[in-house]
């Protein structure tokens, strides 16, 4: 259990659904520093803040636990990708998860059935408000993917009251790191782990979105849904993020 003086937060990223699909980062509103001259609210970077206890051992254990968590999620994503590739919406196919598979799968199948029905009434879809709403959702979704890929990012690490390190990574991937002058090597290692955690989190989120795009394409072909490769993206994204949540909660048996 993470104690009160520990937090992992991110601002400046507009996740689909407004929630981090990894369940690691608390999403905060992008706030303008009082030190800036230009108070433009334009988001040009994402800011990842890691607050750790000032006890070194506790801080190290927490970082290790978060790193393990994200490695596990990458493994779960491998499983979900493989199962999505095999999934055939025209068959009553049971995904071989050891989990409560009814809810996310039933929701996905229901979305597929609904969108399939729209495509058989093609001449009226232009006037269908659900279709229009979904199409707008998809455009927004694709826009967010581009933003997450292109935003600069900044990672700040604190132990107790002390800011230990700050790293800025621009769009090209150039790094700029500022250390507190008296920072000790163990504290500096903590910041490096923070940079690794934030960067890995971003890559995994991009991978989740990419999985949703590929999954939507695969299902659209199998179910023969015109436009399904776009319209199904939000539904497949929800399926992937719901499955990740479920897989994380499965107890590990010895």
């Amino acid at each position, binding site marked *: 259990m993470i104690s009160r003086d520990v937090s992992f937060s991110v601002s400046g990223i507009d996740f689909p659904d407004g929630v981090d699909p990894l369940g690691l980062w608390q999403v905060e509103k992008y706030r*303008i520093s009082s030190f800036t001259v230009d108070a433009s609210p334009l988001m040009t970077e994402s800011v990842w803040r890691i607050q750790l206890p000032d006890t070194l051992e506790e801080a190290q254990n927490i970082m290790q636990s978060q790193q393990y968590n994200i490695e596990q999620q990458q493994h779960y994503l491998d499983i979900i990708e493989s199962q999505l590739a095999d999934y055939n919406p025209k068959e009553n196919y049971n995904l071989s998860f050891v989990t409560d598979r009814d809810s996310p799968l039933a929701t996905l199948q229901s979305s597929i059935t609904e969108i399939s029905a729209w495509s058989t009434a093609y001449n009226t879809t232009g006037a269908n408000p659900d279709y229009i709403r979904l199409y707008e959702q998809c455009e927004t979704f694709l826009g967010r993917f581009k933003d997450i890929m292109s935003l600069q990012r900044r990672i700040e690490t604190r132990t107790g009251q002390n800011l230990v390190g700050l790293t800025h990574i621009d769009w090209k991937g150039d*790094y700029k790191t500022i250390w507190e002058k008296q920072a000790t090597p163990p504290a500096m290692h903590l910041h490096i782990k923070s940079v690794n955690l934030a960067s890995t989190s971003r890559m995994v989120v*991009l991978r989740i979105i990419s999985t949703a795009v590929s999954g939507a394409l695969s299902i659209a072909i199998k179910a023969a849904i015109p436009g399904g490769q776009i319209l199904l993206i939000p539904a497949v994204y929800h399926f992937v993020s719901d499955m990740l949540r479920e897989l994380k909660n499965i107890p590990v048996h010895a």
Partner: protein
Amino acid sequence: MAENDLRRAVNKFTSDLAAKAESFVNDITTLEVRTFTTPSHEFTALVGDGVDLEAPIDGSHMQLRAYTKINFDCDTTICLPVDANNQVDRSVWDMHQTMVEHALKSRQEMLRSMGDALASALRALQLASE
């Protein structure tokens, strides 16, 4: 009309991503990693959303301690940090090197992600055109 809107959405996504990829390819001919130190009382001025780390701060004691630049052809420029005795400051150098390795790995992953995203978008565009 709805089908054209979809095709337009995929087209836009693909062309925006392709433009970004082209800009990225042009920009990634070099990789630069900089390491600075600053006194703790000046550190708080550098945090907060929207602070421009490129803009000089009056009276700042922030010092550039190490710098690495790697060109596309692998020519490398390195500036090593030294302490008051003109000896290499190992703790700063070790951290700097770790960041260089991290930056190289991140760039590889970025290229792979971009490639995967473009491939998916092109497949989707192809399907939308059929």
